[in-house]
């Protein structure tokens, strides 16, 4: 093997190693979120109550995805940048947004949790003083890919039942769907690998 070929082989190995590292970091970050993230349960608002799990993936709606514009505190976030929504747990164990802010708030207690979100339409509703203005916020938990072969079973279970998603939230506010609850019972849990 000539010297330059040897050097090239080493360079290519380094390239493969770094790119593999990037991909592994993506997976690792997600696995850590799913395993160590704080768990909250959010009721799913059925967009179409029938045939929810019949397709390959479903769009899930959440009550916390509608954040009134008046909840904005501090400077408004720039378009297409993530912001933070603070949720508070009420007496009946349901979570509701209480604050929207550009910077991450520090207040986290047993009844408070901070989620990182993005506006569905890139920018927020312009008028925060309008009491009726509502921001449509995505937390990265709105797309659910129906696990292979589980569709009909979940579909049958879900008929006329209350659906909820088990969400894992990490310290930075990243959220991921960990499982699907039907009538309060965990019926499907997302595999890590």
């Amino acid at each position, binding site marked *: 093997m000539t010297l330059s070929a040897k050097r090239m082989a080493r360079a290519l190995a380094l390239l*493969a190693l770094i790119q593999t590292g*990037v991909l592994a970091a993506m997976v690792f970050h997600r696995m850590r979120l799913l395993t160590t993230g704080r768990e909250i349960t959010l009721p799913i608002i059925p967009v179409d109550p029938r045939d929810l799990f019949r397709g390959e993936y479903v769009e899930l709606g959440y009550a916390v995805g509608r954040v009134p514009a008046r909840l904005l505190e501090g400077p408004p976030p720039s378009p*297409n940048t993530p912001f933070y929504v603070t949720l508070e747990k009420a007496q009946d164990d349901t979570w509701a947004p209480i604050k929207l802010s550009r910077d991450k708030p520090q207040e986290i207690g047993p009844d408070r949790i901070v989620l990182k979100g993005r506006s569905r339409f890139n920018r927020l509703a312009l008028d925060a003083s309008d009491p009726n203005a509502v921001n449509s916020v995505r937390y990265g938990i709105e797309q659910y890919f129906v696990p292979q072969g589980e569709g009909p079973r979940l579909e049958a279970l879900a008929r006329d039942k209350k659906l909820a998603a088990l969400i894992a939230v990490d310290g930075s506010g990243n959220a991921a769907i960990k499982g699907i609850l039907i009538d309060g019972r965990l019926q499907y849990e997302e595999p890590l*690998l």
Partner: protein
Amino acid sequence: MSWYRSKLERDLKRWQAAGWVTPDGVGAIRRDLDQNKSAFAAAPVLAVLGAVLFGFAVMSFVAAHWTGMSKLARLALLIGALWACYGGAALLFQRQLAAFAHAAVLGGIAVYGASIMLIAQMYHMEGNPADAVLLWALGALLGAVLASSPAALAATFVLLTVWCSWERIASESALYTFLVPWAGAALTAAWLRWRPGGHLAALSLALWIVPLGFLVWGHHAHWLVVGIGGAVAAAAALWGRAIDRHLPLSAVLFAYGLAVTYAGLFILQFLDDGRWFLGGTDSAPVLRLLLLAILSLVLLLGAMVWALNADNRPALWLAYTALALEIFTLYVRTFGSLLNTSLFFLVAALIVSALAWFAYRLHRSKTATEAAT
């Protein structure tokens, strides 16, 4: 036989008949041509094409929503394909099949990009899709540096431009951060001494500069674009010799500067006021358009004269195209309001006739000086 070769063969026959070239000379020229046969052979082109198709095959995996495999099996498949590409490249470099090796590197970069998208899909990562393209572009740049791969560098410029456009549309900001990876890629092109890479760098920068007018200073900063392009073109025209002493770049710089300048002027004239047809009683926009159109035509004619003198063909063709576009768009925009059709054609005819006369004078004075020396 190439186009150049067949033309040269015809000329050689004529020159030999005229007695300017000896039969020995003709033989020497033919031998020289055979030795320096263009590197544009079919095999490397097909190899790169194969790598591109391979990339598409991997990408269509996303659409097919691969079934039946566990996440671990999918990850193993992706990482395995990545290492197979780069391992194959190393093997091909060792066998001195550089063209195929570079195709394998490009294949690896395609697999890397597909893996980012697939892992994001497998783990339901939504986030900002443009970030995934940036991650891919940086991986491609790394490949271009480590494997000295021009193909990977070309992919880098394309991906950076895609990322920039996407992010700009979503964030409505100028995205100055684009300049950081762009500079890295441009330096890599210089380091590889790859001339098409220089063009890609200039093109991607031009594509970053032109929309800038819509994104900064209250969305009407098109004069800034005209200024940047004009400064580049003027510098290339004024200090061309000084620039060319270091690197023969002035002709190319002039062409790109001209393109950016005219793009800015075009936006100012026809896109920025948000109205397609001029009309009504308000004469201010008509006057503004008229002044801008005169400025554009004068600048384009000036650029043509400079390009003719400097024998800068790309700039000349660019100026011709811009002039045609300018006249056509002026016609469409002013139809039925500012001028009527016959008057328009009269003006266009006068401009073109003046141009022809000017070109003729230029040509005659040039031949006169050549004959005198």
